[in-house]
């Protein structure tokens, strides 16, 4: 696997989740989460070298909503900042890469979403091929149903659970990363990112075998998940947990699988894994995040306690 030139650790995190945030807007919901994560690391925003967020303006129904979210971090004087229109876990992946540059030692990663304000199953249609697929409006749960049925038909998975309603939850997660000695300064229990890889399958559902997850398999092979004792998986539906267990070669390890708020749930898996490791429940674990229809994209990381 590709080694990180500069070792990166998760040093603090904070998360908030509710089925339906009724009154606060995205910034009001995000701000206390960002502040909690920064406070736990003993940092202020002006000590953060790189800030990156994951969210989708389509969930808010508001162009450049991710720019408005910068109110929650205080981008003055101007900060070095980036955004991915994806789950915050993929923003964390960008941060890990930026932290390979000398001179940048800390990063703040955050994600936020309030899908309860819109029609999540329909909104997710807009991530599909806009010419041949999206006009048919195959909703997210429907596509998940195709995958579950394909798994059933393959006969390789035993009982494949029915596909429940798509999880609709509002929330925010923030994670602070730091490099090497700086991480040890900021916490007694840094959670080291030993490897991280992101693989993507074709956007066209028809060319994929939905009963396997080659992107998760390849990412797992690249980071080396052989000797983990636990896994925090980002499964949007129960049948995806079966597929991921198989793709990641998990047998007997403790598995915590969850969907969480769209665009937030993957980063929350990193926060949950870090909490498990720093709290002593695990020594070395997988943190996983997915994006796109039917596990199209997979991000796999191996996190480890300080030895």
């Amino acid at each position: 696997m590709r080694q990180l030139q500069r070792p990166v650790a998760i040093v603090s995190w904070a998360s908030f989740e509710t089925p339906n945030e009724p009154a606060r807007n995205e910034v009001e919901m995000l701000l206390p989460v960002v502040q909690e994560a920064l406070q736990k690391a003993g940092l202020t925003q002006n000590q953060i070298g790189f800030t990156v967020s994951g969210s989708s303006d389509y969930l808010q129904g508001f162009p450049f909503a991710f720019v408005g979210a910068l109110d929650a971090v205080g981008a003055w004087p101007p900060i070095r900042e980036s955004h991915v229109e994806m789950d915050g876990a993929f923003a964390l992946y960008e941060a890990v890469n930026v932290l390979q540059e000398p001179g940048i030692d800390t990063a703040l990663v955050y994600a936020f979403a309030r899908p309860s304000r819109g029609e999540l199953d329909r909104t997710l249609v807009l991530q599909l091929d806009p010419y041949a697929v999206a006009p048919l409006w195959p909703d997210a749960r429907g596509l998940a149903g195709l995958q579950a049925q394909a798994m059933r038909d393959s006969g390789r998975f035993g009982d494949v659970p029915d596909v429940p309603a798509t999880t609709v939850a509002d929330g925010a997660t923030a994670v602070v990363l730091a490099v090497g000695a700086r991480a040890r300064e900021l916490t007694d229990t840094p959670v080291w990112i030993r490897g991280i890889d992101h693989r993507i399958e074709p956007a066209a559902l028809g060319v994929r075998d939905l009963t396997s997850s080659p992107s998760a398999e390849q990412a797992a092979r690249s980071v080396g998940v052989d000797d983990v004792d636990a896994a925090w998986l980002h499964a949007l539906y129960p049948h995806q947990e079966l597929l991921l267990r198989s793709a990641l070669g998990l047998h007997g390890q403790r598995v915590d699988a969850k969907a969480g708020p769209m665009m937030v749930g993957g980063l929350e898996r990193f926060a949950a894994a870090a909490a498990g490791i720093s709290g002593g429940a695990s020594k070395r674990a997988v943190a996983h995040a997915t994006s796109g229809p039917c596990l199209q994209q997979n991000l796999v990381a191996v996190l480890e306690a300080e030895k």
Partner: protein
Amino acid sequence: MTTGPAVTGPEVTGPVTIVETPIHLDYSYTPGVAASRFLRSLERGEIVGQRCPRCKKVYMPPRGACSMCGVATDEELTLSGKGTVCTFCVTRIPSPGLEAPYVSAWIRLDGADITSMFLVQECDPEDVRLGMRVEAVWVEEADRQPNLGNIKYFRPTGEPEAPYDDYKDYV
């Protein structure tokens, strides 16, 4: 290889250059806690702003957070509804509901650290000046809604022009 029916006719021979795929999504918009309090204050005929606890700047409308400091703005204060014209524009073509010429101005409300755009009326557009002191004119109490439409426009107060230093950072 299987073949379908022959595709013929002038209308199907050229490349497709346009595909229309209508998209419609419904959202319920939530202004947020700070903006809700602001909108409710407008319903009462008041203008409420919020002060940043760190840099002390007053936001109007309040956003619940100071975008420069990244902290929550909890302290609320009621502004007088008077302000100063910091910059303006005379439009000489009509807009829906507005006869030309009309004046749009960035107005800094007294006590606020952000300017907002309002109409200036009840005076000749030629008489509008930077530094002109103005006050809000509200719609009738019975017609008030929780939105900025409650302020019909600003009109001159007749006070002397504000000194340049008062608004030079907002021009």
